Structure formats: C-alpha cells, structure tokens
C-alpha cells in the first residue's frame, strides 16, 4: 500500500505536470528547430510569437464568451484557437515579406538574421503589450478537473490523491494530434519531403526544382500554428502573461538545442527532457521516501537536490553540458 502511495505521489507531483509542461515546450521547440533547419537562423521571437498567438486566442475567447458561445465542459479557447492561428499566420507572413525576405535574397549570414529577429521580438512584444497589456490573464472556463484528489482517494482508498486537470489532458491530447500530423506531413507528403530536402542541402534542392518561396511560406505557416497552439495551451494550463512567455523562450531554445537543433523530432523529445529534468531535480523527495522506507530510516531533510528557485538554471545547465559534450544534440539522427 505504501508503495502504491509513493507511486501516486510521484505521478501527481512529478509525472503529470512534467508531461504537460513538456508538451508545451515541445511544441515551441519544434517550430524553433524547423525555422533553424530551413531558414537557418536562431529565431529569438519564438516566445513572443507564442504570446502573440495566445493574445488573439484570448481576444476571440472573450468575444465568443460575450456572444454566449461555449463548448460546455471544454474551454471556449479551443474554439478560438483556429482564429488565433489565422491572425498569427497573417502576422508572420507580413513580417516575412517586410523584414526577413530581404535578408534571404541578400544571403545574409545567420547572425544578421538572428539580430533582425531580435528587432521583430521588440516589435511583437510592443504589440502584445499595447493591445492586451502586461498583466496576468486567465481565460480558462469549463470543467477544471477531470479527476479530483478526493475522488481518487475515495475510489482507491489510498492516502495520496491524484489530481488531473482537464487542461493537462487537453494539452497532451492536442500535442499528440498536432505532432503526429506534423511528422506525417514532413515524412510522407511531397511538400514535407521537399522541405526536408531544402533543409539538408539548399543548392541541391533548388536544382531539383523545389520552390524555395513555397518551402519558406510553409515553414512560417507551421511555425505560426505551433506557436499559437503551444502558447494557448500554456496559457490555459497556467496563465497568460507576456513576460512569462518571453522568458519561456529560454527553455524552448534549450529544448531545441538539447534535441539537436534542426531536427524536429529531437526537439519534440528535448521538450520532455527539459521539463522532466527541471521537475525531477527540484522536487523534494522527503514524502516519497517516508512512504518507502521503514520509520527508523526516515530522512530528516527535504531531500531536494536543488531548490525550486533554480528551476530555469537546471535546464540551462543541461544545455551547457550537452553543448560541451555533444554539440549536435542528444538525438542527432538525420537532420530534419
């Protein structure tokens, strides 16, 4: 019984939160990785693009709520996400036309493009803050919990409760769908294959008649879709605050690099590596061992490897270690 309690404890505080946080990071990391693979620069606007998409999702959610439209037990935001995606797509395409396309035709070095993306980061951040303000916003509605701690305790008769928030399940569900469609697209369709070819060897791809404009456009489309979905899911699960989204850029980059930048599947797994290591290393294991060990061996301290203050530092240290020993990332494999 104690053993089961210990397992449920870990599930509740470690596994479920890490899984949903990891999915949110993974969605971001995939598009950063795609942009790095195809457009060949570090896209510093990543976090702010997510907040841009989320902002429009929130605005549409409010609009639908004012019209009285809702999805019952599901959050209204799910209905608003497609509209948010459309606006984000328009935004990235305009941005590409006005800003990035010039540097592509000039064949500028990646560093210049990264600097330019810092410029767009400032602009995007300004737009988000001017339109919706810098404050914390919650836009979740519908049924909050799928499984409450008390219900679980009654069901199983264990001491430890297991809470599953509906946002966590929605996050996981949508991530699986989106990611499987994406990998199907990249691996099976002709356009996807041409994207991979372009990423592998640009000159060769151009010689074989692949239209670079189309490839670039589809990359931005995917980026906008993933950014909006990832951002909206993060906002539903926690809350929406532009500054947090900007900060999320850092673990997203860490995930993309750890997974081997330019390799979307690696980035997908990298998201989970980052999320799990952040939570595993900062969790206080005292209660876990109290269940497992006999009373005489009970630990005194919290048994916490690192204080939770260092949550971000953990993911960055992993990144540094990976960069040192395997600069091409953990999941090297083929590029894209």
């Amino acid at each position: 019984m104690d053993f089961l309690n210990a397992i449920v404890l870990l599930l509740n505080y470690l596994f479920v939160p890490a899984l949903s946080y990891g999915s949110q990071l993974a969605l971001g990391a995939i598009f950063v990785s795609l942009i790095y693979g195809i457009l060949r620069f570090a896209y510093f606007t990543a976090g702010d693009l997510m907040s841009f998409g989320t902002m429009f999702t929130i605005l549409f959610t409010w609009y639908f709520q004012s019209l009285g439209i809702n999805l019952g037990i599901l959050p209204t935001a799910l209905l608003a996400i497609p509209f948010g995606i459309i606006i984000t797509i328009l935004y990235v395409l305009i941005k590409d036309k006005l800003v990035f396309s010039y540097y592509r035709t000039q064949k500028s070095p990646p560093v210049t493009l990264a600097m330019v993306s810092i410029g767009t980061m400032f602009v995007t951040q300004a737009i988000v803050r001017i339109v919706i303000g810098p404050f914390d916003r919650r836009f979740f509605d519908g049924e909050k919990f799928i499984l409450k701690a008390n219900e679980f305790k009654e069901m199983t008769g264990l001491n430890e409760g297991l809470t599953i928030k509906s946002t966590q399940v929605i996050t996981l569900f949508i991530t699986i769908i989106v990611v499987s469609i994406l990998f199907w697209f990249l691996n099976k369709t002709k356009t996807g294959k041409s994207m991979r070819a372009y990423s592998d060897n640009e000159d060769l791809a151009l010689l074989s008649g692949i239209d670079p404009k189309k490839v670039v456009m589809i990359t931005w489309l995917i980026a906008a879709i993933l950014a909006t979905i990832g951002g909206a899911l993060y906002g539903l699960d926690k809350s929406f605050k532009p500054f947090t989204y900007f900060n999320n850029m850092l673990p997203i980059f860490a995930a993309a690099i750890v997974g081997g930048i330019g390799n979307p599947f690696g980035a997908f797994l990298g998201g989970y590596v980052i999320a799990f290591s952040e939570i595993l290393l900062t969790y206080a294991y005292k209660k876990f061992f109290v269940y497992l060990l006999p009373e005489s061996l009970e630990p005194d301290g919290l048994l916490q490897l690192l204080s939770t203050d260092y949550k971000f530092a953990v993911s960055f240290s992993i990144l540094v270690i990976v960069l040192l020993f395997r600069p091409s990332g953990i999941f090297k494999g083929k590029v894209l």
Partner: protein
Amino acid sequence: MRKNLDIISAYSIMLGLIILVGFLQSWSMALSILCLCLISAVMTMGANIQWGYAGLINFGIMGYTALGGLAAVLVSVPPVREAWQVGGFNIILCAFLIAFMVFSIRFIMKKYNQSKKRSYGIASIIIVGLILLRLISAPAIESIESVSPATTGFLGGMGLPILFSWIAGAFFAGALAYIIGKIALGLRADYLAIATLLISEIVISVIKHEDWLARGVKNVIGLKRPVPYEVDLQSKEWFINLVEKFNQSALNLISNTLERQEVVKQLVIESSTVFVKLCFAGLFTVVVIILLIITQKALYSPWGRMMRAIRDNEEAANAMGKNVVKQHLLIFVLGSAIVGIAGAMMVTYDGLFTPGSYRPMRYTFLIWVMVIVGGSGNNFGAILGGFAVWFLWVEAAPIALFLVNFFTSGLEETNAFRVHLVNSIPYFRFLMMGTGLLLIMRYRPKGILPEKIKHI
C-alpha cells in the same frame, strides 16, 4: 577635421538633445539621462570590442553587469562580523574545497589520457565534492542568513571605498568570462549567442537566490557614494554661497529678505541634486575617456589589425600563425571586464543592488541594439549608440504621449480607444526600439557611424 565631421556633428546633435531636455523638462532629468548614457556607453564599448573587433556574439551582458554590481556590494559594504563568526569558517572551507576540486580535475585531465576510467574518476570527484559542499555549507548558510535577517543576513563586504569596486567588477566579470570562454567559445556564432544568454540567466539566478552572498532578492540598499550627499551639501556654507552666486541676477530682484531666504533654500535643494549628478557624470566621463583612449589605441595597434584579420578570415589568420582560440578568449575576457566596470558603475550610481531588476531585455538586448545602431567596430559609433538609444529609451514615453495625442486628437478625451492607448504608452518604447533596429539593419547595416579602417 573634415574626416571626422560626421562624428563631431553626431555628437553635437546628441549633446544638444540632452541640453534641450534640460531646458524643457529639468536639469536633474537631463543629467540623469547623461549619467546612464555614459554607463550604457561603457557597456556598448565592451560589447563592441567583442562583436566589432572579433565578431564574437555575447548575449551574456546581463550576467557581467550583475557581477559588476555584486562587486560593488562586496567591496563597499562593511563586513558583518557576527555572520563571519558563525559561518565564515565553513564558507572559506567551501572555497578551498572548490579550488581543490578544480585543481585535482585539472591534474587528472593532464596526467591521464582520455578513457572511461578517467571520466568516471572525474565524475566521482564532482559528485563527492558536491555532496561535501552541501554538507559543509548548509549549516553555515542557515546561520549566516539568520543574523538579523531584516538588515544584514549576509557576509557583508570589505568596507572599502566603492570606487575600488569598478576595478573589482572588471575582475569578477573577466573571471566569469574566462570560464564561459573556456566552455563555449568553440561553438558556432548563434549557438554561442544562445549559450551565453542562458549562462547569464544562471548567473542571475545564483545571485538572486544565494542570500548569504548579497541578500538575494532582499536587495542591498544604502551603498556608500563616492560623491557628496545632497543633505550634507545643503548645509555647507560654500555650496550655499555658490548657489547664490549663480543666481545673483534673479535673487537681486527679490527685495524681501524672508522671501529671499525661502527662494535660496529652494534653489539650494534643487541644485544639490544637480551637483551630485554632475559629480557622477564627471566620474563616468573620466572612465569613458580612459576606455576610449585605450580601445582606440588597441584598435589601430598591430594587435587590433590581427583581431580584424581573425574576424574577417579566421582560417587565413590561423594559417599565418595567429592563435585564434587564445585571442578569442582574450578579447572575450577583456570585453566582459569592461561590461563589469559598467555594472559596478551602475550600482554605484543607484546606491542599491537589486538582483531582481536584471532582465535580459534591458541589459542584454537593449545593449545589442545600441551596438548595432551606433556602428559596430567603431568605438565612437558604439558610444553614440549608447547615448542615442538610451536617450530614446527614456524619452520614448513623452514622445509617444505626444504622438498618441496628436493622432487621436479627433477623438474625445474619454474615448475608450484613446484612453487605452494613453495607458499603454510605456510599451511604445519597445516598438520604437524594434522598428529603429530593423530600419538601421535594413538601410544602414553598418550603423550610424560605420567602421573606418585606416589603410597604411
């Protein structure tokens, strides 16, 4: 003269703008803009050495700035004797332990060839060392932090004049840069950018959460100043006389003695803040000029030519027998050290150390905007960038307010859209920075004052 016309005109416009602020808003405001412009100029010089001379991207500016600030605290705050008594021994023991770990690992690395055994050995040294560190430091940290936590709760510093911290800050930042450079300089440009950005975040989180070091997010306030305090000035005879002398003509118009005294008092209070800021501005100008002379000399020396050669063609420079790795490390350390000076200067100017205020937007990306806008590779350009961008950053709000009022003048005062825009005025500065950066990168990619290379 003709050759430097663009530099002279750009700088006179900049100074003119600051003086204009003095007339339109207040002299105190103009001088504080000037002070921060000078600090920003030091930062951009540091970043410019790395980026402009050597082509290294360093997105860790925030980390070095914070370390410079930390130096200001550790140098100027008087030591907390009680805290040293309860925990000092263990902390020193920890320092020795870390040094021992580093040296033993280096010894193993040198002595044995790469093998599985060696890796395991190193890993076990690190793990055992970390456990020992934790065991030794945990009780010490707890007891240090419990020494009157409301006011101290940390080890304190050395109690020296704060000006020394400008040098100490350079050493701190340089030491960190040495470690980071050893780790990360082999990476490609954009990887280096991301790695340094993330490492600077680690530095900030350590400073934020290690309370025994510098009180963490509880902040250190009331740092000693290298210049007089306003309150002291206001009671000094010579200062009051000076103020009276300056405002002679205005004071002569007032015949009533009581009224005159009242006016003098007001003037003394106002001019004391101006005087203090003038002192700061003078100190900062000295630093900027010294650094400018050194960097200019370096740029046109054989060493500067070598750096440009490395930047423009690494392989060719390598083939000519230049040690690229060593030079990269050197310039990375030098540039970061300059940023560290700026960090210490900033904390000296503010008189307080707030680790929570170090954010990448303000301390990394904004500095990069300054370097790019000003002109990378040109020291005058970098300084101008620091001035222009900081000026815009501060004055963005009034400008945005004016523009919003101008464009919405057709709408009513209470119009929801107008009120919303007026409320979000602080965020227009991001928009201005972003569009400014994008425009400069597009139409003048070498910056306002581009790099000039003298060909002999």
